[in-house]
């Protein structure tokens, strides 16, 4: 199982699911209509490191974070 957490303004509790790569996560999240607006503009981190490809492998216990558009300062 991997945990998906939603940062900042995405008002959603973490979820857990079975996934062996980010591609599996993308497939699962697409069915959630609440998230549709966020998938297009969120960056993704695995275990707190930003990643660039859906082929990123995942293993049991990994944490996937969705980071929406930022505005610090």
């Amino acid at each position: 199982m991997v945990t998906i957490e939603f940062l900042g303004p995405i008002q959603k509790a973490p979820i857990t699911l079975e996934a062996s790569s980010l591609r599996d996560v993308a497939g699962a999240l697409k069915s959630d209509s609440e998230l549709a607006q966020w998938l297009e503009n969120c960056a993704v981190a695995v275990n707190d490191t930003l990643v660039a490809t859906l082929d990123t492998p995942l293993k049991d216990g990994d944490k996937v974070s969705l980071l929406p558009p930022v505005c610090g300062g």
Partner: protein
Amino acid sequence: MLELYDGALNVPEIITRWYAEETNYNYGAYIPFIGTVREEDGIDGLSFDVYEPILNAWFNAWQAKAAPLGAKLKMAHSRGDVLVHESSYIAAVFSPKRRVALETIEQFVEDFKASAPIWKYDLKNGERLYAADRSTAIQGAGLLGRDV
């Protein structure tokens, strides 16, 4: 050094402490950038969410990039509510030479705005509203929205 505070920053304490801390580092230029909440659009203030693990990694990468130039970086940011005319952000560079300091502070602040995992909300009429229109998608964003 990265410092996070609940609520507004104590700017005099921070910028003078940083100045004192580096007395014996033989720098020639110190440039703090101080960000203060403007009164506009009828807001009472701003509020911030900060995701520390990635913010720390981002800051440490910048510190490593500045080191070969002889430069040191410091940063402070608020979590939670910061009212109009209070300050929420300080980024600072120390370096032996002025050109490095001027170029580094600009790049550091601009990359901060584009990349640091911090989310801003307007405090208005008792609500906390995500500042979507002023926010920037992090480079590489949209991964999960691509065709699987």
